């Protein structure tokens, strides 16, 4: 049952996705009560959006490793829970070699257990935050309004977790999608899709979403032309180099000026992919069968054609592939990363004159919104919008990193009497047990690494 509103709370999360669950779980672990936390968002399921994207991608395992899951502390790890659940040491053995990636079904099952046990939905007001107003009296706090400008609550500390911006298409494809005759043939990797045998598809990009699509098309019996603007990226297991996931790397990263950080992100986020044997096997087989090839170039024109689409590909570095007749084009180009595409942030930026460069808010080193954030009343960001401070801010590990620090800041500001150690142990053991029991009810996902 969602919470009634207007609702006053110590801390609020504007957003109802992964980030909200991690902030909520961390706050409950440290000792906050449900009545002190509010999650604002219409979705009754904090993993609903992700679940839909993962389904559309055909993704079966996460790219993240064993520590990236929804329990607040790092023990038990997901591999340990999985091992407990399946009565098998195999997940732990894989984890020690860093070859364990939680299955999508398993991690979503865990999220449901954490959500239920922690009472996430009882803290949730089923409305989207449309406006956040800073108030300074009698004590610094925020007043929250929905998208219809109705008052929905107040909170001393607010975490902005709005998720990604809209899906992004290269301009030529975006324009072509305006034509109803072409729109259905140009899709995003994150959208629902259907591939058919003998179909001819162009997949843009070579990151993890694109590689998933290569495999999906090959599995359906179609042919894939993998088109990238640059030579294929290096394979890498995680979104950013490992040590950047920890304070040591983040210290180094934060020591760079904002512009250098943005440049660095452009480098590391250019589309790396994990080296997974099963994918490689499928792609190599497709190559042998003449159903997979990679090319460098960009789509420069699109029109209707006998196969559905006729696209022109230009290669500024070599010979143009020219006009091609294809069944469809799938863009693995992800989301629009500009904060200006997110209405709540755009309003805050415009009204409070929050500094923005290259479509990113110039956040403080604690992910605080400049000008609005105060130690005694925090306004913090998490997710992709925070990756100029925490480079992996949009991964589970990054969300957890930010959630822990934000909630700890709130706990210090509010002088929270923290949950005692024995209570922490019993909470973790019982949560681990419940997750393990829930995992037993679903078939284990095959590991790809």
């Amino acid at each position: 049952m969602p919470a009634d509103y207007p609702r006053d709370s110590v801390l609020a999360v504007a957003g109802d996705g992964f980030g909200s669950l991690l902030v909520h779980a961390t706050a409950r672990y440290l000792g906050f009560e449900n009545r002190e936390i509010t999650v604002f968002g219409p979705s009754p399921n904090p993993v609903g959006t992700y679940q839909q994207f993962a389904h559309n991608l055909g993704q079966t395992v996460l790219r993240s490793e064993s520590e990236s899951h929804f329990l607040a502390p790092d023990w038990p790890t997901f591999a340990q829970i999985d091992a407990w659940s399946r009565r098998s040491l195999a997940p732990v053995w894989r984890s020690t070699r860093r070859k364990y990636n939680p299955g999508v079904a398993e991690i979503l099952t865990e999220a449901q257990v954490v959500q239920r046990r922690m009472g996430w939905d009882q803290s949730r007001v089923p409305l989207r935050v449309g406006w956040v107003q800073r108030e300074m009296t009698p004590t610094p706090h925020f007043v929250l309004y929905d998208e219809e400008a109705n008052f929905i609550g107040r909170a001393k500390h607010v975490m902005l977790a709005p998720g990604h911006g809209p899906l992004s298409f290269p301009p030529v494809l975006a324009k072509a999608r305006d034509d109803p005759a072409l729109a259905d043939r140009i899709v995003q990797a994150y959208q629902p899709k259907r591939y058919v045998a003998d179909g001819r598809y162009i997949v843009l990009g070579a990151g993890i979403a694109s590689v998933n699509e290569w495999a999906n098309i090959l599995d359906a019996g179609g042919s894939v032309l993998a088109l990238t603007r640059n030579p294929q990226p290096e394979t890498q297991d995680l979104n950013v180099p490992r040590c950047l996931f920890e304070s040591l790397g983040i210290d180094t990263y934060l020591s760079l000026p904002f512009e250098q950080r943005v440049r660095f992100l452009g480098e590391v986020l250019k589309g790396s992919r994990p080296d997974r044997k099963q994918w490689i096997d499928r792609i190599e087989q497709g190559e042998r069968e003449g159903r997979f090839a990679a090319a460098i170039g960009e789509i420069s024109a699109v029109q209707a054609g006998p196969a559905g689409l006729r696209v022109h590909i230009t290669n500024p570095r070599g010979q143009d592939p020219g006009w091609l007749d294809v069944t469809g084009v799938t863009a693995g180009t992800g989301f629009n990363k500009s904060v200006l595409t997110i209405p709540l942030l755009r309003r805050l930026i415009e009204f409070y004159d929050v500094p923005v460069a290259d479509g990113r808010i110039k956040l403080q080193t604690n992910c605080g919104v400049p000008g609005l954030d105060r130690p005694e009343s925090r306004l913090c960001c998490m997710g992709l919008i925070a990756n100029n401070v925490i480079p992996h801010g949009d991964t589970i590990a990054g969300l957890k990193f930010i959630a822990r620090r934000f909630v700890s800041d709130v706990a210090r500001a509010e002088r929270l009497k923290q949950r005692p150690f024995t209570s922490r142990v019993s909470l973790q053991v019982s949560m681990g047990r419940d997750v393990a029991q829930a995992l037993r009810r679903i078939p284990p996902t095959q590991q790809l690494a």
Partner: protein
Amino acid sequence: MCPTTLGRVQTRWATIILPAVIAAIISIATHDAGWIVLIGVYFILGVALDSAFYPFIIRWQPPWLTFTLAVGEFILVYILAHVLKVGLTNVEAVLLYWGAWILAIWTKVAILPLISLSWIENAGEFRQTGWSVPPDYQPLALTAFTPPMESSGPPPLARAFSSVNELPQGLRSLPSPSAVHEVPTPLG
């Protein structure tokens, strides 16, 4: 995990406490200092490796490497125990070493992450769960105008309102702002 030198040493301290307490109890019970001495040797060797060797050869430490390092340390402790003649039998020394290691690893895997939410993220260091670089808070302009300085004179609008000036004719006939006593039109 990418432990720093400080993180390695702090973690070594934290994980040796339980084995040291148990070894001390056994030493007292058996009147044989060898048990606690061996733990001392293990600890000193560990700190030496943590501060002068591992940081130079290991940047990112995957979990499998932890066991490999334990085997290497076991060999060194075994040799040192013989050289220093700690007074335990080989079987006692082997049992104590691996018992201590299992306790230490359990402390590391299960207890330290519960004590400190950010112990792993902080490279094994016991820091407050906070941001590594303190923020430079910016003042918030909460009002839509810049407050006047005490020394500044009246603003132009105040000067325009001044009764020193002749009141424009149109201002004289304007109604009062209050609508409390307004007479409804149909009754007027």
